[in-house]
């Protein structure tokens, strides 16, 4: 189980060098971008890799999980936390086969994310298509931006 905070750019006061580390990290990212690499993603090596995006109304979590039974996925959401667990099994070949290469991984996985806002757990929608799991997590009413009218 890996838990990470996904709200970017918030200062961390956990040591005298935290600010310096943050600057260094940003600089490295900048160099990567200038060098023409799109390699700014936070590759954690955790499975499945996740992308989290948001618009005004929803937070979207997308995960690359090729070749899994949708029944084998368990998704839960509470407050600003969403958890994703499951198991990927690669079926044994019935015939006698000789392997040239085996690179595809199998096994159980579990990840928990802390989202930047509270979500409405009742209305979470999960879809699995082409090996990509897409969660649509509606933001809680209190977390949505409000239009403020200016009176004159």
């Amino acid at each position, binding site marked *: 189980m890996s838990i990470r905070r996904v709200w970017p750019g918030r200062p961390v006061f956990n040591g005298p060098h935290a600010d310096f580390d943050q600057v260094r990290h940003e600089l490295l990212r900048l160099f990567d971008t200038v060098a023409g690499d799109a390699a700014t993603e936070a590759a954690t090596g955790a499975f499945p890799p996740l992308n989290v995006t948001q618009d005004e109304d929803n937070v979207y979590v997308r995960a690359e999980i090729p070749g899994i039974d949708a029944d084998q996925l368990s998704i839960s959401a509470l407050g600003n936390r969403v958890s994703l667990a499951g198991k990927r099994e690669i079926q044994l070949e019935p015939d006698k086969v000789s392997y*040239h*290469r085996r690179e595809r991984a199998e096994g159980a996985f579990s990840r928990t994310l802390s989202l930047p806002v509270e979500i409405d757990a009742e209305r979470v929608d999960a879809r699995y298509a082409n090996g990509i799991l897409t969660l649509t997590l509606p933001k809680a009413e209190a977390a949505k931006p409000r239009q403020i009218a200016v009176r004159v």
Partner: protein
Amino acid sequence: MSTDGTTREMRAEPQKGAVHQPSRSNGPEQTRPGVVYSPATDIFETENSITVLADMPGVQAADLQIDLRESVLTLTGRVAAPESGYESDVLREYRSGTFFRQFTLSERIDQAKIDAKLNDGVLRLELPKVERARPRQIVVKTG
């Protein structure tokens, strides 16, 4: 010689999955800009065929190209970014790009009987060997 055939990789793209790095290869470049990934692949062989299984999450059947010529098998799958223009990134651990991988097959393949299925982002490609490449049992008669 039923199971001593080989499949060699033409060139190594970085793999998507366990090792998750975009391409920095020196081979010929793709014409479209974007990140190129090498799909994690299983390959096994039976007496009659070679089977290739490749993880290509996000690829739709229409965007997958499989090409076999002069014993070079080429897999290309393009993934369109699923995000709408209104979404902003919060966390990004993978990118949508192109899956690309090439293998050299040592066996002769019966092109007409190749079968490809794409299910939940996993390609299963059956490459039947041509008849004369299959091993034949020779019965030794006595007397």
